[in-house]
């Protein structure tokens, strides 16, 4: 249950969703959640419901779009795909993310040495 409460930053989750859609093409909510868990080698057990808040936010910003389709188990599902604006945002955010994690990494290394 501890994983449920692990505080994934809202922005981080949104970024992961964007990245997933960018890499995998159109996916439904379950698909996105599974994919994120797989990539993180099950280290990140998210409360899958939170995906939907992230999806609403991304939709409102126009970075993803949604369309109704049929899932593997033959049920109606909404498939999300990344938009052009979303891709642009992803690149900007990804760079930003790498820069920040780089900085944090360096700081931590310095701290270890000190």
């Amino acid at each position: 249950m501890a994983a449920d409460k692990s505080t994934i930053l809202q922005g981080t989750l949104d970024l992961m969703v964007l990245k997933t859609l960018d890499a995998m093409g159109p996916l439904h909510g379950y698909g996105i959640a599974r994919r994120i868990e797989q990539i993180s080698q099950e280290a990140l057990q998210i409360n899958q419901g939170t995906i939907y808040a992230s999806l609403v936010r991304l939709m409102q910003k126009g970075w993803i779009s949604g369309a109704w389709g049929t899932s593997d188990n033959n049920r109606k599902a909404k498939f999300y795909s990344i938009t052009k604006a979303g891709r642009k945002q992803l690149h900007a955010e990804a760079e930003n993310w790498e820069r920040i994690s780089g900085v944090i990494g360096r700081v931590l290394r310095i701290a270890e040495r000190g």
Partner: protein
Amino acid sequence: MLAWMQTLVSRMRVWLFPGRADQEFEQELETHLDLLTHENIHRGMTPEGARRAALMRLGGITQLKENNRELRGLPFLETFLQDVRYALRMLRKNPGFATVAVLTLALGIGANTAIFSVVYAVLLKPLPYPQPEQLVTVFEAKPQEGIMGNGWSYPNFAELRADNHIFSEMAGTQQHQLTLTGRGDPTVVNTASVTPELFSVLGLKPIAGRTFLPEEGKPGAQAVVILSESLWRGPFGADPIIIGSSITLDKRSCAVVGVMPAGFRFPAISEEEQIWIPLVQDPLFGSWIERRGGHWLRVFARLKPGVSIAQAQAELDAFSARLAKEFPTENAGWVIRMTPLQGMIVENVRPALLVLSGAVGLVLLIACANIANLLLARATSRAREIAVRAALGAGRTRIVRQLLSETLVLGLLGGLTGIALAYWGVHGLSSLLPSSVPRANEIGLDRFVLGFALLLSAIASCAFGLTPALFAANSNLQASLREGSRSGESTSRRRARNFLAAGEIALATVLLVASGLLLRSFAKLTSTSPGFDVQHVMKASVSLPRFQYSTPQQWIAFSNELLARIQAQPGMRDSAMAVPLPITDGFINLAFDIPGTPPPSAGTSRSANFVSVSPDYFRIMAIPLLAGRFFNAHDNLSAPRVTVISKAMARMYFPNQDPLGKRLTFGFPFESVGEKEIVGIVGDVRDVALGQNPGAMMYVPFDQAPFWGGNLVVKSTLGPSSVAGTMRQVVHQIDKDLPVTDIMMLPDGIESSVAQPRFRTFLLGVFAAMAMALAAIGIFGVISYSVSRRTNEIGIRVALGAQSADILKQVLAEGARLALVGLSLGLAASVVATRFLATLLFGVNPIDPLTFAAVAAILATVALVACYLPARRATRVDPLVALRYE
């Protein structure tokens, strides 16, 4: 920015069509659950276990849906509307509370809005001219003698106008009345005699024709005139070919060159000018423009862009220093000052209006305290409801927001009702407003005033809503739930309510004291003996056209003939001529010399108010003779010049001497300056205003100092209409073209001179009464509420043997404590607050013990009466019923 807009659009869409989005989301979640369950079954779980695990993995479905709805829609707006709906329902369920609260607030908002509409139009609204902030009035002053705000001589004005670096334009004006004949009945028109630049100083265009040309301001130019729109539309029937035609003013023909729009009122502002003529054409002032002595021309100017008041003042100082050096006789000691035009116009009414605004603000504060009290009491009885809400998960902010929405609804209802009241109030105010208030024609409920009213309602709602809301949100949830709806309330809340009630009494005290002071001051003002008695005295003004009656001999002949004919009428024996009359007319202050004595030392001057009267005037006005003699029929042009002075003048200028037989040098108009022998001393008269102490006065016989007409005063016990009719008839027997104007009973004229003090005294009285009523309701509310909360306790006391007198005493004591605290605070505050009233008071100390004591007595009585009703109810508590009630 774009993303933000997109978000809003998407939210709006969902908000408008909520059902579909909900269904879609449900569908999505259903699919998700299904897929998760499948996955779990694959891992070997039982179908039930798989579903349960899936649900846990996904999180609470209901909560997800709720979150989703909030994210997608406009939750703030939604909850607000929900709160508003709820608030309206609550108000409908408590019509008594709603009515009291809305009406209380409406009264406060309405009174404030009405007063603000006056304050805005008179004090705040920019003058209706282009760049009004550049407009200034420039005046001469002699500070060491206390002469402020005097006029200019024309040559001084012309010199500065021709050579200065600070004003883009300057203009001079004076005003009086001229006779208009040839169009229906002869009438008198308010005339402004102006230099041609006035219109360009103000930057206003005529609606027809043109304004004056520069050359029309020079002597010898053709006589021209500009009409006001109202005169043009009235007597002239909106004559379309008025421009170029001519009208007859004081029996002289003038060509009409323009018509000014109706809104244009200058320089009088409060009264309506009807005609503008070039100064040089004026029958009186026109002859004065060569004279460097005399201070009569009112000067207005427009500052050059970028020139500050300080810069301009520096140049004015240099200019007045030069004048004093070049023309010491006329200009020594005089300096030139300036002030923004708007400030000058409202100077007289500003203190009273500010006091009234403050007073009405206090009324609103009391109203707010009252409503806050009602809300607090209600919040206590709603504690359980709020506790239930909190228990069901409502956050503190959510509860505060809901309660604030309720008060906001209350505030808006009160505000709207208040605006309706204000609409009615503004009409009432406008009709009550003394005619001397400038810019009164601009008062109304315009956009700005309405905005003010709404803003005020919003602020008021927050003021009375916030405290109860915070209290409610802070209340101890468990205690409230456990204790049920009618247990004791928290001490802090009771304290807050007591504080509010005492505060209301304190504020009401301040208002009552202020109103009491004004009332006493007004009573003093109107009961002060002015030094004369005008009972049964009627006056009428007759003005002789100066291009027809051009010599002093003609003026004397007219006045003697008029008096002879009037006195021949039955019952009108007591009649006289006088210029000017005390209080109803202006006053003429003249400098004089005492021949044979050294000139007054630097920094002092000799001046007295000048009156020209026919012999019977003193008797008719009951002004007593103290020494010497009154004037008689022999004091005419062929006799030695004589004067009668007032007691104050004798005391000031002839201390320890007998003034009789001494001589004075003065005269008005300037042509008649000469030596006059003092033949009599009469009693002092308040001639400037009822509230101003009598000063030095010198009277001269009308036949030795005649005017082109004047005031005919008749003391008669015949009815006013018959006296007025006779006066008109007799004047027209002599000359049918003479207008007879300003006919009135003199007591009415004196009465209207105190219109402004009466107006502010009345209004402040109304506000004080409102404040007292609200405060009484406030203390009544607190005490009744306290009694009803303590029914149980009182029941026990009665059961244990307390007498009804004990209960009565106990409840009254509670009220008396509040009243006492409020009163002491209020009286202390009044000591400070009444200082702002000082300029409005006449003959009353701002800390008048009598007023303070009376207010304390009145308020204490009112408070006790307000507490008596609930106290009586407390004594009737039946212990059995009270105990069972719990």
